[in-house]
């Protein structure tokens, strides 16, 4: 069953079109992440789904029920806000039960629900405190508790971890993922943090300028980005994209960048249509590495090196194109040095320069 079904959704603020025809179907039990740079419309989309903003056109269905005309409180959703939005004057317990109070749930039932959620999130000891007496991580838990207590069809998370410090963010990430594994609810999760998206999502919807660029599983979004935007947005550092010419190479294909020739095994049939034409060649930095691995050799000039400890990111110039490579930390390179790098082109992506879309 589709937990969420969004069709051709448009939203304007004044003359600015923030959502330009969003189509999105999320299956029940999925952990869907809306990922994109700030201003891409992901939070607006979440607010429209929640019923906190009205769309200018298009439909929203939650649990296969059309909810366009239904107010937020009756949409069977729960929301966790970036600022947590805990009611400052209420205790943790009242914060969690406020929704039930509004809906007239009897007191014993409320207490039962609080006990269940408090145990799940380990906030039993905090129930009589006020939000101002809690740490950031505790507030985050309470905000999640307020959402969990509803047991809704759809959880909406609006950048819930971005106010936490780095360490806590990593912990909460794991915890939310585990929580989802336990309760198996459908989650729509907005973030600009691609690590969060990659680690937690069952599918990622990459958004830019009010449009969904790609909606697919994390490894698909990462390894087969639908277009140049997705390729250049995901990954730290992102995918290298170089202008290249596609040529025939025996039975197979190869890309030429200046004098460099890279054989391209494992390209889809559609790529043949681009033989003897310009394309964008996309190669992840981890596919360009130090010699000693299998692949085609690239003569490169080292421009800068960025050691991270586990590996070293090398910015290099190859046939006039700048690209980033990941090499082992024990490979000593200095800027200005000429060196050989090895490109593993088995997972190379080709993009149509006219449409910027992935070929095949």
């Amino acid at each position: 069953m589709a937990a969420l079904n969004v069709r051709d959704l448009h939203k304007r603020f004044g003359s600015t079109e923030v959502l330009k025809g969003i189509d999105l179907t999320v299956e029940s039990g999925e952990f869907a992440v809306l990922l994109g740079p700030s201003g891409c419309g992901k939070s607006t989309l979440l607010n429209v789904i929640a019923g906190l903003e009205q769309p200018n056109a298009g439909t929203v269905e939650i649990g296969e029920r059309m909810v366009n005309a239904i107010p937020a409180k009756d949409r069977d959703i729960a929301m966790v806000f970036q600022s947590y939005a805990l009611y400052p004057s209420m205790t943790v317990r009242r914060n969690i039960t406020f929704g039930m109070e509004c809906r007239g749930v009897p007191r014993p039932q409320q207490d039962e629900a609080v006990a269940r959620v408090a145990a799940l999130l380990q906030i039993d000891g905090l129930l009589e405190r006020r939000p101002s007496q809690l740490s950031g991580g505790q507030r985050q838990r309470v905000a999640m508790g307020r959402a969990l207590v509803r047991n809704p069809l759809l959880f909406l998370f609006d950048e819930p971890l971005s106010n936490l410090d780095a360490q806590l963010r990593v912990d909460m990430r794991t915890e939310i993922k585990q929580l989802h594994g336990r309760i198996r609810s459908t989650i729509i999760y907005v973030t600009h943090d691609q690590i969060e998206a990659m680690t937690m999502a069952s599918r990622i919807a990459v958004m830019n300028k009010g449009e969904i660029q790609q909606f697919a599983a994390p490894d698909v979004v990462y390894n087969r980005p639908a277009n140049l935007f997705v390729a250049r947005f995901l990954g730290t550092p992102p995918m290298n994209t170089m202008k290249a010419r596609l040529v025939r190479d025996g039975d197979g294909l190869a890309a030429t960048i200046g004098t460099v020739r890279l054989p391209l095994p494992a390209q889809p049939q559609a790529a043949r249509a681009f033989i003897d034409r310009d394309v964008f060649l996309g190669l992840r930095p981890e596919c360009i590495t130090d010699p000693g691995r299998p692949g085609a050799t690239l003569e490169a000039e080292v421009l800068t090196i960025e050691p991270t400890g586990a590996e070293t990111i090398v910015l290099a110039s190859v046939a006039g194109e700048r690209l980033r490579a990941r090499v082992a930390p024990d490979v000593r390179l200095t800027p200005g040095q000429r060196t050989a790098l090895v490109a593993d082109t088995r997972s190379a992506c080709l993009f149509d320069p006219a449409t910027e879309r992935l070929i095949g």
Partner: protein
Amino acid sequence: MRDSLRPGRWLLYAVLIGFAGFTLLPLVVVILNSFRTAQEIARTSVVGWPHGLAWQNWVQAWSGYCIAQRCEGIRPYMENSFMLAVPATILSTALGAIAGYSISLWRFRGDTIVFAVVVMGVFLPEQMKLIPWALVLRELGLTNTIAALVLIHTVQGMSFTTLFCRNYYIGIPQDLMKAARVDGAGYFRTFWRIVLPLSPPILIVTVIWQFTGIWNEFLYGVTFTTGGQQPVTAALIAIATTPATDLVEYGIQSAAVLLAAVPTLLVYFLGGRYFLRGLTAGAIK
């Protein structure tokens, strides 16, 4: 030599103390005169040290002195002022809180225009509104009643209270409102359960501001009420302008003025700390 002991400092403090003394002088004269008999003042001068403590001035001012042919002192007029200032303060603050809440947190079409029009009331001079109010009061049949003054001060006070509350509430994060909507809280429940508990700082400010302003207001009081319906500010003028005998009762007048100032001073001393804090505080964390 320490900084604070330099001659320049001494001069500075001397000048400041001089100015402060000058500012306080009228108050000192009034306090001193409230303990001097009329005869003593007439014999010497309006400015002078009391020879004894003439407590009867205070008694007379409170409950015996004749004002406009009624010899009950200012007490009934103080009561009038309470009957008018307390409800008008509560009503204007409550309405201002609701209005400020609506304008800042339940954005509606044209809300900024409504706000601009309401706040314009802050800048309109009282005199301009005298005749319109006279017509309204006549239509409502409220001429020469305390209820009329309650109505006027409630309506006019809303400009200030709405401005204060709106500027305070605008600091409440929109996410709180969204959370309340998702939780299913409506307009009044959100106000009552979420916004109002955050409001004491600004409500104290508006109450002090409104009470002081309404208590001290004179023009409407003297224009729209006569005789026994007048607030204390109007009665004080009546004391000053209708001397009972040839002897001007400066002592009783002084005591009456001081008595009339007690409620606002009390409010200030009790809530002044909040007042200074509230005017600058806006952020709600």
